[in-house]
């Protein structure tokens, strides 16, 4: 298998991937240093006849050094990660002009509610479809995430989006798709026997085809309700 992250299709994905690869190189360095060090010591100081081990109980300087270095690296990572985290999840990071879509997770389906022309959820002109989540490209989307029964988790790998859907809570998450195409919502939190195929189709449209799709779907929906 190739060791890469799936194609990234959202704005936050880029920030997350960069951080991932930064940590990757830091950890790989630490990994090589430690493992190589261990193996080298094992070979160099292997037991031999007449060999005398050095009688020492430690070295304050050395211990201070190898306490400080990881501490510094961790502080740096903490600050960097904090920045990125805030840019994705802090309350003021939510774009206010975003398209708001309601997603209700239930065993074992994703019920998606689209607002009417008023772009507001929770009134008569909303319409609802099952297991289809279609959004326009290059437009921030806020998903109002709810759950009807167990805890589910709204996961679109290519969007680098994951958020548990908790019954009794409405959790908003936002992201912005940067490329059109078809993806899938996967449930990432064990939610029962159907967990392993609790999935929904994600379609990222260019603006015009999104409009077309939206009009068609809302028309159908209201036709059915007559």
């Amino acid at each position: 298998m190739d060791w890469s992250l799936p194609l990234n299709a959202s704005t936050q994905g880029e920030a997350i991937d960069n951080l991932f690869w930064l940590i990757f190189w830091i950890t790989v360095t630490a990994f090589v240093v430690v493992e190589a060090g261990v193996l080298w010591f094992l070979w160099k100081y292997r037991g031999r006849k007449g060999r005398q081990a050095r009688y020492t109980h430690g070295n304050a300087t050395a211990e201070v050094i190898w306490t400080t270095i990881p501490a510094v690296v961790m502080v740096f990572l903490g600050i960097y990660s904090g920045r990125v985290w805030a840019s994705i999840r802090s309350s003021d990071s939510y774009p206010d002009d975003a398209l708001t879509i309601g997603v209700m997770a239930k065993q074992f389906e994703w019920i998606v509610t689209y607002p009417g022309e008023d772009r507001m959820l929770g009134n008569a002109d909303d319409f609802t479809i099952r297991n289809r989540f279609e959004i326009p490209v290059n437009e921030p989307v806020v998903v109002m995430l709810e759950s009807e029964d167990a805890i589910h988790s709204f996961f679109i790998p290519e969007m680098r989006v994951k958020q548990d859907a908790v019954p009794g809570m409405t959790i908003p998450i936002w992201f912005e798709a940067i490329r059109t195409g078809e993806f899938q919502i996967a449930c990432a939190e064990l939610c029962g026997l159907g967990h392993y195929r609790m999935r929904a189709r994600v379609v990222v449209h260019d603006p015009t085809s999104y409009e077309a799709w939206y009009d068609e779907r809302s028309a159908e929906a209201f036709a059915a309700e007559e």
Partner: protein
Amino acid sequence: MATIVAEASGMPVLVVEHEMPFIRKYVFSTDHKVIGIQFLFFSLFFLLIGGLLAVLIRYQLGWPGKAIPGGGVLPESMAPQGIMLPEFYNSLVTMHGTFMVFFAIMPLLVGVYANYLIPLQIGAHDMAFPKLNMASFWISVPAGLMMMASFAVEGGAAGAGWTSYAPLSARPDLSGVSLGQQMWIVSLVVLGLGSILGAVNYVTTVINNRAPGMTWFRLPLATWALFISAILILLSMPVLSAAMIMLLFDQTIGTNFFLPAEGGQPLLWQHLFWFFGHPEVYILILPAMGFVSEIIANGSRKPIFGYHSMVFALIAIAFLGFLVWGHHMFQSGMNPALGMSFMISTLVISVPSAIKVFNWMGTLWEGNIQFHTPMLFAVGFVMLFVIGGLSGVYMASTPVDIYIHDTYFIVAHIHYVLLGGSLFAIFGAIYYWFPKMFGRMINDTAGKIHFFATFILFNLTFFPMHGLGMKGMMRRIYDPAQYEHLSEIQDTNTMVSIAAIALFGTGIYFLVLFFWSLFKGKKAPANPWNATTLEWQTPSPPRHGNWSELPVVYHGPYEYSHPDMDRDWLAQNERPDIVSPAHPELTDQVLAETGASEEPSPGTHTDGAG
């Protein structure tokens, strides 16, 4: 071996070898050594069960939807015609985690070695409360049996994951499991009571029953680690019990603690569970670190590098362990600002772990390294624990965790820490203390074969899981092929499964070796590894009551290659005339505090061996 010249403490002989009836001596025994060995058999049994469940899980993931060979014996409710059902898969995942964490690794570390080692290493005749100690084992047994029995009840065993997130775990109509889940809860509450009783015992014993001269900073690191873990158990386990009881009430008598119906809060369960769960993770790794420190010092024939920083690292980890639980909940709907603070505490806690790794390297440095099997496993622990620790950094970083949370990256991480970490240390400990426990050696070559096979197969099994996680493969899914983004990873899964099944094979090999050595292993001397700590200054196995007279301790735990000695080790209880320069100022201070600064009059006697 040479008889050990040691000081007599002048204590009156507390224990006389009087013949006890078989059942009191070997079944309902109050001897900490018997109880430790009972726990060993108990937890090895559940290690085997947990391994079997893992093989079933890996079979389904390697060959999704194919009939399990010989699976026809399973009832229709689990695997009709041998084809595993998703609900059974969920039960397998849940019970594998439960058995491994609560009934295998935890008792192996704490139940076995806290019981067996603490009194021997601190120079006590037995635990402070031997009867309580017996109770803690015989409480654990019915808990284990009930957990096993839950497979047989209607609806099957618990299937909400070992973390049993509510509401799934609280609502039978969602999980299809009712009685099984309740048995799971009751079993763990009972087990928890047992662990708490045990922990009370360990803590009291270490505080109050140390031999003359066994000051805090002369305690072997294994005892230190077990002592700290016992404190963690004391403070975290009751919180789990409280949560479990609330969950049980939600299941049975219609309360709504964790159900949103009447204002209950599903997240409350996660907070309570992880407030226990994260200290639990350290309960599962600290003793392992302690054993590894013992073995590496012995194998390198050097005093452990930075004994005091090792101790302070243990304490720091234990303390911080109570402040990081939220890092399991970054994507749970918890306030993102909280996520930030939990990320900081999580990154901080990685520092003491790093210190320990470097100290182990420092111990190897300029040593005279003996490659006996325990040493191999100890070094293996260090190498694998490093990987587990480093992969932890990814999930500590909240943004990256958005992507890898609940993926196989996590599965890889926890197995590098728990299997590559804890279990390797446990294997090392078993090989190391087996001679003391049973008076027989395990053949070293056979042990080395076990090590290399396990080490290679372990990495073949779990390292690729990092890749699966990077591809976005979620945890606890019955059939990855259902997802487009997982379409091309089936071959990896199959390869992993083959390695996993082979890894299980090495486990069987170990069990055979273990039981064979029990009967056929060659007789062990009192101190086969030329070790310095007190348990090695007794015959193998030690007599009931451990010591005819309590030993008197003059040295730190790892006085290897002392320049004033003609041999490369100096037992803690010999040669008061030799001074070990380990942090003298600190030792003075501690001695002053504990009022044992004065050493008794010289005079020789052969300890215990008589």
